[in-house]
């Protein structure tokens, strides 16, 4: 029994304490958080832009205006680009996307983390776009008409009336997307970016001990996700307080 605990301690010591290895985990954690945070920002930005284009296109199709204007042509072209983007991103594995970004696009660059941020941000954007679009489509058409009948243009209607309501509806789905995104950054380990998963695996290979490094990494991810879930719940409750 005593032997078991002393072995466990040795293993723990090798994983975390010897050579200040806990610092590796900390650095890995910070890298994961940086990548996830900036990728999420990029994902939101791209997602909203793409959703705006796609929704605008859909609404223009429905309105049945008589004259085809210059703006319609632009929107049509943008819509095609957005469709291709969503199809390609959703249709290929994230690992391949990261590898393409890292080995092809960033072949001559040393900025590994930027490659990861761009790759996951672009990936997330495609999913966010569809979530946002579903939110916009979930708002009753009457809301749009009421706003337009007051004299608001399309953009103001989106800003004041549609998006605030849509955002409330899509918050759970968006939260889910960000949770997936945080965990998906572990894919970056595949191309050797020193984030959390990579660090865990590295320590495992140095210590020949699999238990502590991998369990530690798993627990850290779990804590991040729990924290994120907590924050999202709080935000959801605050948004709902204006809703009676």
């Amino acid at each position: 029994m005593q032997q078991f605990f002393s072995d466990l301690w040795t293993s723990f010591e090798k994983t975390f304490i010897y050579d200040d290895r806990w610092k590796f985990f900390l650095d890995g954690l910070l890298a994961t958080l940086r990548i996830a945070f900036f990728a999420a920002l990029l994902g939101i930005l791209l997602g909203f832009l793409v959703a705006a284009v796609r929704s605008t296109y859909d609404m223009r199709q429905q309105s049945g205006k008589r004259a085809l204007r210059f703006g319609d042509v632009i929107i049509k072209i943008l819509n095609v680009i957005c469709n291709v983007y969503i199809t390609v991103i959703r249709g290929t594995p994230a690992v391949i996307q990261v590898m393409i970004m890292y080995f092809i696009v960033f072949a001559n660059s040393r900025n590994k983390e930027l490659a990861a941020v761009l790759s996951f941000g672009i990936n997330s954007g495609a999913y966010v776009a569809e979530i946002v679009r579903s939110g916009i489509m979930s708002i009753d058409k009457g809301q749009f008409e009421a706003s337009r009948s007051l004299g608001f243009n399309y953009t103001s209607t989106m800003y004041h009336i549609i998006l605030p309501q849509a955002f409330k509806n899509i918050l759970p789905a968006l939260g889910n997307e960000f949770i997936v995104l945080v965990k998906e950054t572990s894919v970056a380990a595949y191309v050797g970016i020193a984030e959390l998963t990579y660090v865990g695996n590295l320590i495992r290979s140095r210590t020949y001990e699999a238990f502590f490094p991998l369990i530690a990494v798993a627990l850290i991810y779990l804590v991040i996700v729990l924290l994120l879930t907590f924050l999202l719940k709080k935000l959801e409750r605050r948004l709902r307080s204006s809703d009676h």
Partner: protein
Amino acid sequence: MTTDREVLIEVQGLQKSFGELHVLKGIDAEIRRGDVMVVVGASGSGKSTFLRCLNLLEHPTGGTITFEGVNITDPSVNINLHRQKMGMVFQQFNLFPHKTVLKNMTLGPTKLLHQSKAQAEKHAIELLERVGLADKANAYPNQLSGGQKQRVAIVRALAMNPDVMLFDEPTSALDPEMVGEVLEVMKQLAREGMTMVVVTHEMGFAREVGSQIVFVDEGVIKERSNPKDFFENPQNPRLKDFLSKVL
């Protein structure tokens, strides 16, 4: 009917198709300042589409609509500016659920007419008082009954100081006991001289406050006259048939 009042809306040869479906097949109408035009007809006759074309919520496929001297069907016209002068009330109220009654009413005046917040709120409260809902200023739409919602929707449109009010079956989604309170507000508006175009099934309202009544059927206006002739001496056989069913 006097004819020397200014023509506010002139509709000429209005057509609207939804794909293969030809809903409006050439409608002419003239609405003068102070008119209360009541549009009646069976469901599917095109009367709502006609109303929704007036502020271009539906884009006509043919014909012209001239509002205050401007052909608003011209694609180069900025319709948003003209819509500010045309209030609209919907069957489903369409209040903004994420905003209080007061915010619903001040959003347009502050953002579009550039009124100060205080000015817009003062006007909004005055309007709410007129329809007996001043105590609901800080309520959210979901806390109101159907009749209250529709009265708020009416004053939200009035807060923009429109020149004409368009009503699209304003009482059709209401419980019967709430129809009266909404019609009362509309009658009061009519008495104050507001120009109104009303699509409705309320024949009592049409008879009482309508200055001209039009019967829309199969995408055209089959009959138009003053309330007395319309109800007591209808000419068109389809109208006779319609009246026999609804009266």
